[in-house]
């Protein structure tokens, strides 16, 4: 049994495996399948100030080794989360990451203020490709990333700020640095890549929203490279994700420099994905005689 404990921005996690936003709700449903207290943390469904109904259906499509989603940030609003879901996650003893989105700078300021001191992290979604309110407008250029990060940070006096970067950008390096300069305590990446699947018979896109965010196994090599680049660019901790399906995949992201990982689409392919990934990670470390997961972080060496 290797030691899987990690610490990010002063927050202790029992292991580095966190449920990715939007794939795990607020944890209750998967807790009917296994006790979710075994995982390191839960990033909540992306929340906005007011409840949102989201996009029309179909909201999901599939490609080889990938899926596309366009949920459109359906959520019950941040107040509902604070009243009804936070205490459940607290009781489970998992790190609580409140994933938030907005359409204006004020939205981000207000929602961060509401969560200040309540969650373990606030994860700023400035990278949802599916709706205007998803903050994509802020997530493309370094200048606006810097600005929205500053606004969020000024509301978060007690809770560390995690900025979630979009991969649909010119320079991950520049954007990671912009978040760091803006005051981010850590960053997470990647959010989904934009994509489209066409139904040949209907000659129409499968998704009602036409385009959606691509995630799952097929995006992993691109995500690993981006996480590596981000880790090289900044001094703050990086949380990596994108296509993690196994313990080995998680180890790969950590070798690339990630301090922790998030697992999204894998939960759909295997409802027990997260506990499995944790035990596979453990087995990998044991098989390599590694005592603590911290020993592998950022150990990749370029050829």
């Amino acid at each position: 049994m290797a030691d899987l404990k990690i610490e990010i921005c002063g927050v202790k996690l029992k292991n580095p495996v966190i449920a990715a936003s939007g794939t795990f709700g607020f944890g209750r449903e998967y807790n009917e399948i296994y006790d979710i207290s075994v995982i390191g943390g839960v990033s909540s469904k992306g929340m906005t100030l007011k409840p949102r109904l989201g996009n029309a259906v179909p909201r999901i499509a599939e490609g080889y080794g990938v899926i596309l989603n366009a949920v459109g940030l359906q959520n019950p609003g941040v107040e509902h989360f604070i009243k009804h879901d936070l205490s459940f996650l607290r009781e489970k003893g998992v790190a609580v990451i409140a994933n938030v989105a907005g359409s204006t700078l004020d939205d981000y300021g207000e929602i961060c203020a509401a969560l200040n001191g309540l969650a373990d992290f606030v994860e700023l979604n400035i990278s949802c490709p599916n709706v205007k309110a998803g903050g994509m407008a802020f997530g493309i250029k370094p200048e606006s990333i810097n600005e929205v990060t500053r606004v969020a940070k000024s509301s978060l006096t007690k809770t560390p700020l995690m900025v979630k970067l979009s991969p649909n950008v010119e320079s991950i390096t520049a954007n990671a640095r912009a978040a760091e300069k803006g005051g981010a305590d850590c960053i997470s990446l990647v959010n989904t890549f934009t994509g489209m699947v066409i139904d040949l018979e209907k000659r129409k896109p499968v998704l009602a929203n036409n385009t959606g965010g691509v995630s799952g196994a097929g995006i992993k090599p691109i995500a690993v490279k981006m996480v590596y680049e981000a880790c090289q660019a900044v001094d703050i901790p990086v949380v990596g994700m994108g296509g993690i399906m196994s313990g080995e995949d998680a180890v790969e992201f950590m070798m690339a420099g990630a301090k922790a990982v998030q697992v999204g689409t894998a939960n759909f392919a295997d409802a027990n994905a997260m506990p499995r990934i944790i035990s596979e990670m453990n087995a990998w470390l044991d098989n390599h005689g590694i005592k603590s997961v911290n020993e592998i972080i950022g150990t990749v060496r370029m050829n």
Partner: protein
Amino acid sequence: MKDLTAIVKGNEEIAEKIYMLTLELTEDVGAVRGGQFVNLSVGDGSMLLRRPLGVCKTDGRLLSVCYQVKGRGTERLTAAKEGDELKVLLPLGNGFLLDKYKNIAVIGGGVGIFPLIATIREHCADKNFYSYIGFRNKSAVCLLDELGKSKSLTVTTDDGSYGIKGNAVSAYFEDVNKPAADAIIACGPPVMLKVLKRELKEHGVNIPCFVSLEERMGCGVGACLVCVCKKTDGENARVCKDGPVFDINEVEL
């Protein structure tokens, strides 16, 4: 609710492009209700999404689903053979809750008949089912022995090649001798359910009617909000968790 390994016991074509897949579950999952469904891996890692399929039969640890070959996933599923292992998440959704009812009209079309069969099997010892079942044509007709567990059975085909020419909804409303029912259960293509809702209104039928809906799914357990339908109160409901069975008056069709 468990995600477990199942062993394929049979996978036979029972009508044109319709297969019955029988699985042996390697763990106990408790009672499975008619109208509940499973999320099945198709046995190909390049397809990350499970396929939702209504439970058709259960017998101890044996569970059968019937699927129509539609796209890549169900095509791949036809290759599953005895002894193969598939992952299956179950039981999912609410199913048909019929405690309060005794005489039940059943209206089903296409692949919608399979969850209805499970419901008939579950309750036929102490409830009366009057079934109206529509198939595309003669080559799609299947499982008449199971459907025959109903007190009465009317079969239709779109082209009249078997049974009455027409569809299940029109057969129900045109049946002048229909036995009095205290509830209706229905499952079938979206257009069938839409017509059913309209006809119920037009005929002033006000017994409860429960419909099972289909939507594309991600998690299957209520976490991802991918599979929503619109409720008449303007809110969204998750087909996988709040459904798939809804009161017909509660949902927009």
